[in-house]
């Protein structure tokens, strides 16, 4: 009985850790994409999204 409860707790803990990692990955990837579209100075990415940047209220352009 004790053995079973320990295993269940470990499984829950592992899932939670895994979920946190997944959420962090999603945040990181979306963050990278948003940064590339909205905040980078690299001209091939900066210039095409100029109008979008100016259309988004809080996003600074220059």
């Amino acid at each position, binding site marked *: 009985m004790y053995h079973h409860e320990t295993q269940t707790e470990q499984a829950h803990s592992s899932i939670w850790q895994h979920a946190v990692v997944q959420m962090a990955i*999603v*945040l990181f990837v979306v963050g990278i994409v948003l940064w590339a579209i909205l905040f980078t100075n690299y001209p091939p*990415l900066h*210039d095409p999204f*100029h109008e979008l940047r100016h259309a*988004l*209220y809080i996003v600074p*352009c*220059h």
Partner: protein
Amino acid sequence: MTRIRWFVLVIVLGVVSVWGMRAQAATLDVRLTTNPPVQAIIPDETFTTTTLEVRDENGAPLNGLVWVHLRTPRAPRVLGTDFPYVEDTLLLDLPAQARDGRIELGLVYPIRGTYTFDVEAPLPEGGVRTARATLTIQENPAEVRNFIVVVAGLFGIGLLAGFFIASNSRHVVLGGVLFVLIGLFPAPAGAHGGTDNQASAENVPGDTSWVLEGTTWRVEGVLDAPTARVGEPLGMRFTATSLDGQPLPPASIVVEAIHAEDEIPIYRFTIPLQEGDVPAAVHFFDGAPHDVRYTVVVGDEQATYTMRLPVEGFSPPLWTKVRALLILLTPLLAGMLLGYGLVRRTRRRLVVGTYA
């Protein structure tokens, strides 16, 4: 005791002089009207004719030379603007001729917020009278709407991601992440400084001076730098000279700045000219070339000079960009936590229901 008397005298004189200056400063009254109405002004878009109506202490319209200092709004605490370097800077600093109390300035207001107009009118006996008026411009409603849509979209993506993460569907999350990454590549074409506009609007250093001459006059314009920079006003100086030794007839210069890529007017104002130097400063807030047209009017004669003025833009401060990114990621995180929490709670209820 004598020291104390002197001290009191100095304090009293100080208070009286400050009170006198304040009283003197309050003798002008400035009222602002705009065309289109202020509610219809969209920052960085609407060319607005702003009329300043200046009246003296008796309520009579002021006539004569005044100085206008136009300052941009302060930086918002949380939600930034399109042009962070333009916040809390001088937009225009120029002399103007008040006729029947009216001064007209044509400009595109760059950002939302409260603009401050400080007007100074010299007194005949020396000193100046000052007055202040403010004008508050609201944010572009389309930008606010777009922002709400983006926030809702990010929240929705977060909600879905939370559902999949809680369902332990790793491949779906991975697929979603790849989908988002692939979405980077088909970027829309043509925009600010894009290849289509390179030929017609290159940001190369321009001239710093020009000369226009009429039959009896000569006007020289000199810029402080060949390139304007976003974040600081560009100083300019106009020097009018009479060529026949006679006093210069009534003269003025109309300054028009046009955004070269979009061909939209940004500034239009008239500066009175007199023999000698007349300084002014103009802040070009968009980092793209502008065509600046100077039209000198002396008596019945007029002459025009147009120059291409490059404007150097800068990437916003890192903290401003990071702050905006964090604001955008917040709804994503909130959506993920909610989606994850909802699935976990539903599962727990099902498990409890099964064993009950």
